[in-house]
C-alpha cells in the first residue's frame, strides 16, 4: 500500500472528522483531525490496519497545544501522523493508553511538561520528576506576546 492509498482509505471512512491532509516527501503524511475523533481513528489504524504507535510529539504554539500522534505501517514504510489542536486554556484529550500500553509513558510525559490532561489515563502520574518539580509549572510551555 502506498501513502495515498492509506490516506484514501482513512478519508473514506472518517471524512467528517478530517480537517486537512498534508502529503509530505517520502512516505509521510500529516492528517489534521477533530480532537474528539482521536480514539476512533487510532483504533482503526492500530486494530484494523496494523499500524504501530511510534510516539506522540506535543507543541505549544499560538494556535494552542498541538499533538502529533505518529503511527508507522512497517510493512510499507509509511508514517501517518494524526494531528490535533487542543484548547489554549484547558488542554485535554482522550488517552490512548487503554488501547495500547505504548502511549502510557509519553502521555504522562506530555502531562508533566505541557500540562495537557489525558482523560481516562490509567495512571497519569509524573514520569520524569516525581516529587522533584514545582506543581503547576510546565517547562515546555511558551509565553506568546
Amino acid at each position: 500500500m502506498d501513502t495515498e492509498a492509506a490516506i484514501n482509505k482513512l478519508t473514506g471512512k472518517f471524512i467528517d472528522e478530517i480537517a486537512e491532509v498534508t502529503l509530505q516527501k517520502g512516505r509521510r503524511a500529516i492528517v489534521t483531525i477533530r480532537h474528539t475523533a482521536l480514539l476512533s481513528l487510532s483504533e482503526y489504524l492500530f486494530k484494523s490496519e496494523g499500524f504501530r504507535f511510534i510516539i506522540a510529539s506535543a507543541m505549544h504554539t499560538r494556535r494552542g497545544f498541538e499533538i502529533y500522534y505518529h503511527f508507522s505501517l512497517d510493512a510499507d514504510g509509511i508514517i501517518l501522523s494524526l494531528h490535533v489542536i487542543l484548547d489554549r486554556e484547558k488542554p485535554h484529550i482522550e488517552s490512548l493508553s487503554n488501547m495500547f500500553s505504548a502511549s502510557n509513558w509519553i502521555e504522562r510525559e506530555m502531562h508533566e511538561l505541557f500540562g495537557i490532561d489525558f482523560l481516562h489515563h490509567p495512571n497519569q502520574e509524573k514520569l520524569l520528576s516525581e516529587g522533584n518539580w514545582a506543581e503547576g509549572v510546565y517547562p515546555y510551555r511558551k509565553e506568546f506576546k
Partner: protein
Amino acid sequence: MSRKTLIPIGPYHPLQEEPELFKLYCDGEIVRDIKWETGYNHRGIEKLSESKSYDQVFFLVERICGICSTSHPFAFANAVEEIVGVEITDRSKYIRSVIGELERIHSHLLWVGLAGHFLGYNTVFMWAWKYREPILDLFEMITGNRNSYAMFKVGGVRRDIEKSKIPAIRKEMGVIRKKLDLLTGAVMDDPVIHARTKGVGILTRQDVIDYAAVGPTARASGVDIDVRRDDPYAAYPLVNWKVITAEAGDVFAKAEVRLLEMYESASIIEQCLDALEKLEEGNIALKINEIPAGIGTGRAEAPRGEVFHFVVSDGSNSPARHKIRAPSYTNIATFKKSCIGQTIADATISLAAVDPCYCCTERMAAAYDNSSGEKILNANELIEISMKRTNEIRKSEAGHE
C-alpha cells in the same frame, strides 16, 4: 493478606551502568510487581535543541547516548534532509552505513559482555569487551574519536574514509568474524547459559505490539521490523543483507538475534567498502545553505531499535520543536510483562535483555521564569531537594519489611 518485600535495584547500583531505580515487590523469591523511578539523567536535550543551530544540534544529539552515539545524529540528519528535500551523495551514504554498522557491532558486543556479567559468567564479559576494543580503535582511526564521532552533518558526512584506511577495516572484519564464531559458539552451546536464559523473561508477540517495542527486543519475539529495510535510508537499500528474527521471545532469543546481527553488520560494512573503493574520494557533503520551514520525520535503526526524530522548522536557524524517541523509551516499559512472575535472579537479566539505555530515555528541561529570567530551581535548591529525597527514600525503605 500477603505481604510483599521491596527490593530496590538502584538508583546507583553495581549492576547498572546508569542511575535508575527499579522497585521489585517480591513474594519470597518471586517478583509480583515492579515499578520504576526515572529522572536521574535529565539533561534537557529536546528543549536545548530549540536554542541551537542545526549544525550544533548534531553535537547535542550525539551526546544523548554514550554507546550508540551515531544513531541520533543519523535520525536527525534524515529528518532535516527530508525538510530540505535533498538526497545525499552515494559516497556519503556508504560512509554513514559503515559508521552505523561498526557501531552496531561494538554496541552488541558491549551488551553480550554485560549480559554475561549479569549472569555471573564473567569470561563472556572479558572476551566480548576485549573483542570490542579493536572496533573502537577503528573508530578512532576513521573519525579521531573512540565514541561521539562527529561524523554527520546536514547533507553528508564530515570526514571521508580514504582508500588508505579501507584495508585496516577489511582486515578487522575478517578478525571479528572469527572472534564472533568463537563467542557465538561459546554462548549458544553453553548449558549454563541455556538454563539461565531459555524460557526466561518471555515477551510474546502480542506484548511487543502492545508496548510498541522495537529493535532486537521486537525481532526476538517474531515481530519482523527493521527500519533499515522498511523505510530505507543511507546505503542499506544498496547492499545485500537480511533481517534476523527469532520466535521464542526469551532472553536467549534476544542474545541470538544480537549475535547473528553482528555477522550481517560485518557483511554490510564489507559491501560498503567495496563500493567506496570504486567511488572517487571526496564529494562527501552537499552544501546546504538554509533549512526551509517544514516538518521532517527521521528514523534510523540503532542497535537497540528504531530511533525517531520529529523536527519542526519555522525557517529560522534552529528547530522550533524537536521531539526525540529513543528505542529504550518503549523497550524498557516491557519489563512489566517480562519480569513479573520471575525469580529475582532472573528479573535482573530480563531487565538487561532489552539493552536498556536510560540516558536515552530521559531528556528533561531546565526551567526559567519567563518574567524575571531567573532559574526556577538553582543549584542549592537542587542539592536540598536531592538530600530531602535521599532521606525520604531511607525512611520509606526502612518502613518496609
